[in-house]
Structure formats: C-alpha cells, structure tokens
C-alpha cells in the first residue's frame, strides 16, 4: 500500500470507527441498523455523526437484523443510497433478506464484523458467519485492517452501483482483531470522495411515471433467466472491481490489487493463502523466512464472491506446495476456502500438494509461531513427508 500523507486527515481509529467514517464519506441517505457486538461501535459512531449534524440521513432504529435488511430494501427500491452493518447471529438472522436484496439487484452496502456463530456461544472472530452466506448473491470482500475497511466501504458503493453490477456488497472485518484495534487511518477528503462517488441515480428504482413491479414473483418459465443475470453480473463485477481499485488508487494513493493481492509470490515455491486480519501476521513471518532464504509467499484472497478462479488457475503451475488458512470449517469436509481454491487449482489438471489449516476459530489467536508451523508443514509435505490434508492449528492438545 502506498500512503499519500497529503490526501485527507490522519486519525487514530479502530476498525469500526474507520467503517463509520467510510460510510459518512459516501453520504448514504438511509441507514437502518441494529446493534450487535462487535459491530456496535459503527452504529454508535454513525448515530453520533447524525446527532451532531455531521451526517444527514434517515437513521432507522429497526427492531431486528431481518428488519434492518428489510428497511434497506425498501429504501433502495426508491433509489436511496443505503448503508447498514451487522455481525454473526445478526447476519444469520437476516439471511432471508440477503437473498431478497441481491435477487432484486439493489446495490446495498453492508459491513459485517466477522464473529463466530453459536453454539457454543462466543463473540470473537472467525469467518463462519459470512462464509455461510456465500450463496446469497452478495459480493463479499474481506479486509486486513482499518484503512482497508474505510477504503473498501467507498469502493463497495462504486462497485455495487455500477450498472454492470447492481449487486449488494458485504465488507467483512474480523471481529475485535480489526473492529476494535486502533491504528492510524487516513480519512480521505470529502470533496475527493464526492468526485469519486457521485450521487446515486438508480435505473432500478420506483418511478411513479413508469410504474413497475419489483422483487416480483417469477414463475418456473422465467425464474432461471433472472438467476442467469445475477451470475452474469457477478462475472462482470470482476472487471469492475479491478477498475474501481485502479481509479481509487489514482485518486487516493492506495491500491489493493482487486480480487487478490500477492505478497512475495513471484518466485515462491511454498505459498500460504488466507483472508482477513491474519494476513498482517503472515506478512511478518513470510519476511522472516525470506530473510533466511526460503522461497515463501502469501496470497491475500480479498473477494470470496466473485471468486477469482482465474488467478488460482494461474497459480497452480507456479508453486510446489500450497497452504490454505481457513478461519472457518464446513463440518464434514474441510475449510470453505480450501474447497473453493482446490476446485480452481484442480481445473488446470496440475494441482500442487495442498494442506488446509483450520485456525483462529472463535477468536483463537493465530500467532507468528502458528504461521511458521504451517510453513514448516508445507515444506515437509513438499519433501514428500506425510502431512494430513486437514489440520487444526493452535489447539489445546496435539492435532488428533
């Protein structure tokens, strides 16, 4: 990331506050939102902005997450720019509405604080909540830190509101690790954001002069064609995501690489792939191993949907072993990222050995030592030693 100190204001913010500032800069007109830990600081900061006239919008105190997304849908239907935020159980509770909004092609932007799902009950980070919503038709991006969170809220509107896309975007931040960690964040100038993101004029909104039905009942002989259009919009969004990142970088000086970011992958033989806050830790370990002359690299998967299968198809022939860190698990199989990535790798006919590491569940720390342990296992695997395909890292007792 390139930082341009001349642009915007530097402030000491946690991830939730960074999201609130990002939302404020985008001038959403309607914000229906329901509090849930660890998203609450977003809700509170925005309420403060509204109370202090720093933000002009309808802040709706909905009585549930289902209603948050319901109200978001209503407001989007009349062409308003909408923002909301949730987490975990709340995201699960609005599951039905996620389908309604994406199927109606409303460009709602939502922040999700990644938190595990009960039971056992716990408020700390893993990505099982949003990964369980993979098939709801939302674009999903996972950020590494507060700066990326702020920037991705702005980019999310540019992506969602592009006529080629018209699909909602979920910006995911690991609970506490990103949402509650303070760091220096550049808050871009409002004037520049206004240039980057002009007021939204939806082509998919209610017009009394031309009455239409929205979110219709589509019978069997029409429904599949609507689904095809959703898929095509997702496919087109890959190009839009790249364009928006480029445009954003040119204006604000920070580039994120679009669907994926490579870190020291060019000549790497062993590569780790992960999403979210663990990337920050992994970068440090990769640097340490590089200093020792080991050819290791890191792939930061940023977008789970649309999925960058083309990238992984290109990666399959370049490396000797791959480790996939999943902060989630699909019980009865493996981590979701592992399934997704292995499917792309296998489609090339030359899949390198892959080990899936399940780590950081329910806020369990993923330490530098854990990352080093994963890399060591990958080198073992590369050398032909037996390593299980699926391993839990950081358990209280040795992996059984």
């Amino acid at each position, binding site marked *: 990331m390139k930082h341009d100190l001349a642009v915007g204001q530097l402030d000491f913010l946690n991830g939730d506050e960074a999201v609130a500032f990002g939302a404020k800069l985008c001038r959403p007109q309607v914000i229906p939102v329901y509090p849930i830990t660890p998203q609450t600081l977003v809700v509170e900061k925005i309420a403060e902005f509204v109370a202090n006239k720093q933000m002009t919008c309808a802040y709706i105190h909905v009585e549930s997450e289902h209603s948050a997304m*319901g109200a978001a*849908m*209503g*407001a989007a239907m009349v062409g308003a720019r909408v923002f909301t935020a949730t987490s975990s159980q709340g995201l699960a509770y609005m599951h039905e*509405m996620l389908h309604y909004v994406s199927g109606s092609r409303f460009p709602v932007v939502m922040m999700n604080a990644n938190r595990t799902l009960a039971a056992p009950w716990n408020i700390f980070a893993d990505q099982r909540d949003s990964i369980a919503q993979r098939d709801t038709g939302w674009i999903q991006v996972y950020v590494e830190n507060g700066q990326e969170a702020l920037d991705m809220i702005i980019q999310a509107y540019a992506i969602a509101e592009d006529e080629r896309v018209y699909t909602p975007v979920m910006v995911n931040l690991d609970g506490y690790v990103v949402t509650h960690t303070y760091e220096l964040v550049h808050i871009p100038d409002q004037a520049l954001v206004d240039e980057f993101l002009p007021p939204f004029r939806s082509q998919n909104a*209610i017009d009394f002069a031309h*009455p239409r039905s*929205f979110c219709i009942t589509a019978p069997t002989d029409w429904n599949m064609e609507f689904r095809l259009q959703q898929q095509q919009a997702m496919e087109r969004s890959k190009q839009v995501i790249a364009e928006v990142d480029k445009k954003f970088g040119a204006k604000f000086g920070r580039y994120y690489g679009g669907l994926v970011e490579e870190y020291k992958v060019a000549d790497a033989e062993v590569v780790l792939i992960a999403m979210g806050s663990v990337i920050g830790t992994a970068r440090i370990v990769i640097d340490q191993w590089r200093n020792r002359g080991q050819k290791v690299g890191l792939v930061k998967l940023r977008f789970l949907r649309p999925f960058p299968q083309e990238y992984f198809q290109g990666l399959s022939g370049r490396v000797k072993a791959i480790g996939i860190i999943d902060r989630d698990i699909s019980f009865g199989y493996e981590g979701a990222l592992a399934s997704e990535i292995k499917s792309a790798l296998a489609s090339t006919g030359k899949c390198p050995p892959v080990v899936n590491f399940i780590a950081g569940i329910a806020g369990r720390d993923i330490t530098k030592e854990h990352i080093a342990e994963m890399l060591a296992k990958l080198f073992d695997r590369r050398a032909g030693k037996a390593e299980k395909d699926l391993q839990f890292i950081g358990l209280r007792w040795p992996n059984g």
Partner: protein
Amino acid sequence: MVKVKELPDREFLYGHKACPGCSLGTIGRLALKILGEKTIVALPASCMSTVTTQYPQMNYTVPSFTMAFAGTGAVLSGLSAGLKAQGITDAYVLGIAGDGGTADIGLQALSGAVERGDDFIYICYDNEAYMNTGVQRSSLTPLGASTTNSPAGPASWGESRPKKNLFEIMIAHRIPYAATASSAYPFDFMNKMAKTKIIKGPKFIQVMCPCPTGWGFPSHLTVAIGKLAVETGLWYLAEYENGKVKMNLVPKTFKPVEEYLKKQRRFRHLTEEQIKLIQEHRDQEWQMIRQRWL
C-alpha cells in the same frame, strides 16, 4: 365521507387471479381508488402477492413489489425513509398483508415500524388462516374453526384458542390511527382509507375478508357472510383515533351465532355445546367492549 360519484373510474388493480368470491381484489381495488396513483404497494408472501404479481403479468398500475413474509413493516419504514430522503412527500406507502403475515410472522416488524412512528398505511386482510398455503390456522383463526393443521376430529373441535385481538395490540402502541373493517361494508372501509390519507405516521386497518375456499361457503355469499359476522357480534367495526375508540356499528341485538357458523364448512362439526362456548366467548368480548368503549 367518500362518494361513489367522486371515486376515480381508473383502476389500479385488475386482472388478478384470486378465487371466485374472494373479496381480496375488492379491498385492494377500493384502497387504491382512495389513495390514487402515487402509491407504492408492498406485499409479503400471501394470497395477495400470489394472485397479483406473477411475472410478467402485473396487475397493479402503481409500483408494487413482493416482500419477505416477516418483513412488511420493515420495508414500509425503508420506503418511507427513502422517499423522504429523495424529497418525495406526496406519495403513499401501502402494505397489504394477510392475518398470518401480520399477526404471526410479521408482528415484530409491524410493531417496530408502528413504534417508530414511520409514515405508512398497513392493511391486514384477515381471512382467518394461512389461505395461500392451504388453510392452516393462524393466531387470528377463530375459536372452533377446523383448518388443515387444526382439523376437527374425535380429539379436537378445531381451533382451540380464541382469535388474537390485533386491533387492541395496535392501540397498545398508541398508533395515530387503527381501525377494523369488513369487505362487506365497503363504504365504512373506504371512509377509513380516506382518513389514512390525512393522518401522519403509521395507520392500520384490519379488514375482515371472508374466504369461500378456506371457510367453505358458496362464492356468491361473501358479502352475506361478512355482514353476518358483524350482525352476530363475532366481528366489529371500530376505529381508534386521538386516543379514543369509536364503535362504528353496534347491532341492537345480536343474531344467533349459529346463523353465521352453520353457513361455513369450517364450523360444520361444532356441537351445540361448542356453539354455546363460542357464544359465551362473544358475550365476554362484548362485555369488555361495553365497559371500555361504549
């Protein structure tokens, strides 16, 4: 007062696929004639959405959409806020939902929207069961009614719990305007709809909508059945405004409940004793009405 001559000839809802004798179309049609073309209609999963919004045949000439079963109240809040944010102040936001979609799965969202004081009109067309899914009981199914999931049999006399009082739930919110109505009394209904145009904030009307298919009566008797419900005291027409309840029609004497019950398949199994229980329940309800509101 609404005058027939002053109603617009223009139809905003026509060509729907409701069952013969269903008054659902009448309720939607009359409501929209009162509200006019700058109205957005929100419909959760229900008979109304099923019979009027099948792509590509749209039966409304105003903007309309289908909403999740539980979310009518929430989407009305969003529409209202969205319109306001765009500077549109002369449009109406109308939700039309069934009894299950209102009193059961949709109650939380409706309660939230009413409590927040958002500006919308909500019609609950009450046909006293989940008709669109095949006549299953809701919390608004009346005592003794046989439905497909509360069937009468040797161990059951049908629905064993009395109808929940939704009107009083709305009053408990201190809503600006709430009313009960019936499709058998169209002028009363239209006059109430006309009030919703003037009053700011949430407005709620529960309209009894007799269902030939689910209740089991010949399709030409819809209005007669609707009138009998009021004449036997098993339904009443009332409105709540400025903190007071007004009873719009109080029969001097009630017709025997049998006259209403015997005409419907759903009550055909009832014994004299059970009918007596229904009558006693009616009398208790009216005792409460007389004590508080008359």
